[in-house]
């Protein structure tokens, strides 16, 4: 594997809720421009970890830096450099497409001109230009998801965190969504994506697989498949999950 400059580093990341250990000594590093897959079953602790990396939640212990900033003391600096798309795709349902773009662009400090240009750029690319003034709740789920992704990268962050971005949509939309992810990665933005669809894991540069709050495996999909002697990531996952 080529040696890249790291942009996320987590050493012994631990998060406890009372006696429950949601993240148990996670160790990983994500390289610049990488598509890093953060896999695991529902409840394995993916969202907990992603929230810590985004500065939405405090870790219990561990040394963690994101974009070179410390998650304990420099959360606000981290926030300037990341984009985040949550499971719920946080678009304002009662605002129009453009109003959503204008709002998020505005609070990230983009100028009016930049907001207009980038909105047009994304809508043009998604083929949703004619829906610019449509209220979000009138749009189908798949479109909302692509719009939410565009909003997460509107301010050109260095890293974008995607928390189960493809939940509940059809395979074609999922495929298109992954095309968007590749494009973003090509522009040099690091993509940190959680999913429980194992076929999506094949698209990632490297994946980590979480079982019950621990990282059980971390490598490229190829290496993992060879290691566990299976022909799909699904196989890798099943072997690991049964073991755990």
């Amino acid at each position, binding site marked *: 594997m080529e040696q890249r400059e790291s942009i996320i580093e987590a050493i012994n990341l631990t998060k406890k809720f009372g006696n429950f250990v949601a993240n148990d000594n996670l160790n990983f590093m994500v390289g610049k421009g990488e598509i890093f897959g953060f896999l695991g079953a529902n409840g394995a602790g993916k969202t907990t970890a992603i929230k810590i990396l985004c*500065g*939405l939640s405090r870790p219990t212990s561990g040394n963690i830096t994101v974009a070179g900033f410390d998650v304990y003391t420099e959360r606000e600096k981290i926030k300037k450099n990341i984009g*985040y798309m949550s499971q*719920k795709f*946080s678009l304002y349902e009662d605002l129009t497409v453009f*109003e959503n773009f204008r*709002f998020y662009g*505005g*609070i990230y*400090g983009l100028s009016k001109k930049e907001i207009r240009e980038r909105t047009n750029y994304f809508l043009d690319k998604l083929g949703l230009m004619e829906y610019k003034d449509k209220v979000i709740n009138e749009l189908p789920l798949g479109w909302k998801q692509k719009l939410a992704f565009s909003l997460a990268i509107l301010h050109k962050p260095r890293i974008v965190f995607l928390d189960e971005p493809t939940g509940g949509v059809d395979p074609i939309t999922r495929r298109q969504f992954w095309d968007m992810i590749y494009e973003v990665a090509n522009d040099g933005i690091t993509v940190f994506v959680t999913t429980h669809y194992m076929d999506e894991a094949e698209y990632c540069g490297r994946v980590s697989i979480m079982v019950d709050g621990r990282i059980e495996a971390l490598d490229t999909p190829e290496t993992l498949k060879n290691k566990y002697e299976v022909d799909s990531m699904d196989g890798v996952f099943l072997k690991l999950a049964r073991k755990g």
Partner: protein
Amino acid sequence: MRTIIYILQKEFLQIFRNRTMLPIIFIVPILQLLILSYTATFEIKNVDLVVVDMDQSMESRDLVGKFKGSPFFTIKDYTFSYMEAEESLKTGHADQILRIPLNFSKNLERSKEAAIQVTTNAIDGSAASLVNAYAMSIIMDFNKNIVVQDLGLSGDPEPIKITSSFWYNPELDYITYMVPGILVLLVTIIGMFLSSMNVVREKEIGTIEQINVTPIKKYQLIIGKLLPFWIIALFELAFGLLIARLVFNIPILGSIGLIFFVAMIYLLVVQGLGLLVSTMTNTQQQAMFISWFFLVIFIMMSGLFTPVESMPIWAQYINKANPIAYFIEMIRMIMLKGSLLQDIQKPLMALGIYATISLTLATWRYRKVA
């Protein structure tokens, strides 16, 4: 600054696009003002009276006639059975029984003394004493006439005359008293409920997480969230004052500017409390119940319906932490007495301190991280 403007723009868009909230914000308070002001009355009119006149004399009819002529009494029934009269008191058919016993006029003539009985439904104590007072004044009046007629006293039967003059609300009009207080309630409901609900709503639908992941500053978000309802509440106050003036003809003796100045500070208090509630709750339902809990206590203790001075001492101490009490006191002073800034200095200072505390607490409690 630019960030705040973007938040404000978004908030106003959402408020004006919400088809259920818009009427709640603009129509409900006006209806409340109109309905409450007319209905929350201390005056008792139309007391239903049952007359048990066993005497059937000229004097007894004269007395009954006085009740009949009073605007406060409606004679529901005449009966000769006291039991029957009691029954109508029990069923709620009547509020009061006037019983004139047999030989009423005879006794009056002979011994210059006669008894009558007035029985009042006193479930509502203060209403009962009021009704009783009405009845007493009619009977006193009757008494006086007899004294003048029978004893043939010449000149003034009352050597000492007491004239009362009521200041600031000379006609003792309850609407004049209620409307300023109800205006306060409207402003409070907007300030406290809507501010807390708005933030919790974003928690509920999950958009707050997206906001929290942006480099937005806490104070920017809080200003962006509170300012719209601050403006709307002041707008509503203006509208309410207009209705008070035009519909109810309430005098506004003091300066309108001063009323707004007090309202501006007051709103910071209730909005701070609303925001504090929102930081402690996760659903609109929870926020609603907690806000409601405090509002009911604040309102009942505020002096809107019952004077604060007649509450127990401990309650008066609790009232020191009741922003509604301060504002009602001040708005009544300004509107009805024409009080100036120096007259309301103390309660205004208290509100100012309160605003600082509630906003500081809310800001401190508001977390961008879970």
